[in-house]
């Protein structure tokens, strides 16, 4: 629940944004984030809400971190990677 996953904003419609998380697209709410978000920005996702616009200079570092975690562990036995993937994917097929 508390994992903060960064994603790239692809489109914005009012208070809803389409955000890409490593190839998985999700709709995020923009009600909470406290600065203007534009297409191309990276945001931190918490339970379907953008809670922070990540400063651009930090983006590469953060993305590299997640890439490394997902890549190096092979994910199978890695709870964190599974959680990240699960959290990203779980929004896709809820009732």
């Amino acid at each position, binding site marked *: 629940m508390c994992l*903060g996953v960064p994603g790239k904003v692809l489109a914005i419609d009012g208070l809803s944004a389409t955000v890409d998380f490593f190839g998985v697209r999700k709709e995020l709410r923009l009600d*909470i984030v406290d600065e203007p978000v534009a297409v191309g920005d990276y945001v931190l996702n918490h339970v*379907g809400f953008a809670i922070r616009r990540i400063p651009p200079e930090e983006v590469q570092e953060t993305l590299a971190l997640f890439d490394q975690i997902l890549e*190096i562990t092979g994910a199978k036995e890695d709870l964190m990677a599974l959680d990240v993937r699960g959290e990203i994917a779980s929004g896709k097929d*809820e009732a």
Partner: protein
Amino acid sequence: MTTPRDPTLELKFRDPARARALAGALAQRVAAIGRPIQVMHVCGSHEQAIARFGLRALFPPGLTLIMGPGCPVCVTDAPEVDEAVALARQGARVCTYGDMLRLPGTALSLADAAASGARVDVVYSVSHAAELARRHPEEEVVFLASGFETTAVATAAVALAGPPKNLSILSVHKYVPAAMEVVAASPATRIDGFVAAGHAAIITGWEIFEPFAARTGRPVVVAGFEPLDILAAVLKLVELIEAGDASVFNAYPRCVSKEGNRPAQGSLWKVFEPRDGVWRGIATVKGGNLELRAELAHLDARRRFRIDTAPVRDAAAEVRSERCRCGEIMLGLATPAECPLYGSPCVPEAPVGACMVSSEGTCRIWHTYGGVPDLRENA
């Protein structure tokens, strides 16, 4: 259960030279203090990073890092789960976050309720709960709202956005700063300083910890979630302890500001008010629960429905879980390995205690990463 991971191998993609330098500095500072130091973090995501990367193996023997009450699922009290189970069995459509499903009530979990025919849905977000209610106007949809203040802010946003009339909220939201007070005040626990969770502080700002640090005499360092973030934060914390400086340091400046997200705080307190509440295994936490304000009674499942939990309780089941030591584990008074139920019969597939349920629970994390992540004990 598995071979302990080699921490130097794990840290290769995290600049091992810097990690070793931080660990070396940490050992020096702890040695200079000349007594055992005990620090606590209050975040499941921190514990995942610590266990995952074997960070405890880098700490000197005089330093202990404990996970405190940092998992909102784990501290949700059994009678609160009973309320959700009772509502589901009374015919409401209960939806909640996935890690709440198998959390035991006094006798039953929501998964049990679903198995016996109740409507229980997993949602990824409270906004999806609102959509569910919109799509099913003929049903009473109850969102079991769990999580700390960062998650409560999302619930508040939906509450303020004109949700559908058939949606109500059963709030079991918790407020972390209140629990830190309990830990600091507990005579049995001796904690020299706290590592605060970066994500919660994105909303609250780091200034929220200043009165706490001043009052308790314990320094607080706000930390991010990379291994080096955590090592650097612990080093800074030990330096503050050595200096006797009970101040707050922000070691996660790329995401956390002093004042935090003010509009989100405004929404949070417009919707919720702090109330005293029991945290599972810990105590009554003064101001630890976030309840919906009276003005939002129409949204509050507790006010909208008469919830009768008597039929879903089972005294015998309560007795069975008495040996569970989750409470002591969350207060830093015991480790999972010291619990007689840990690993057998209490496992993620059949959890007895709350700490084994959530992916952020201490027991679940230890179990996943090989039992005893403190590699010093295996050396």
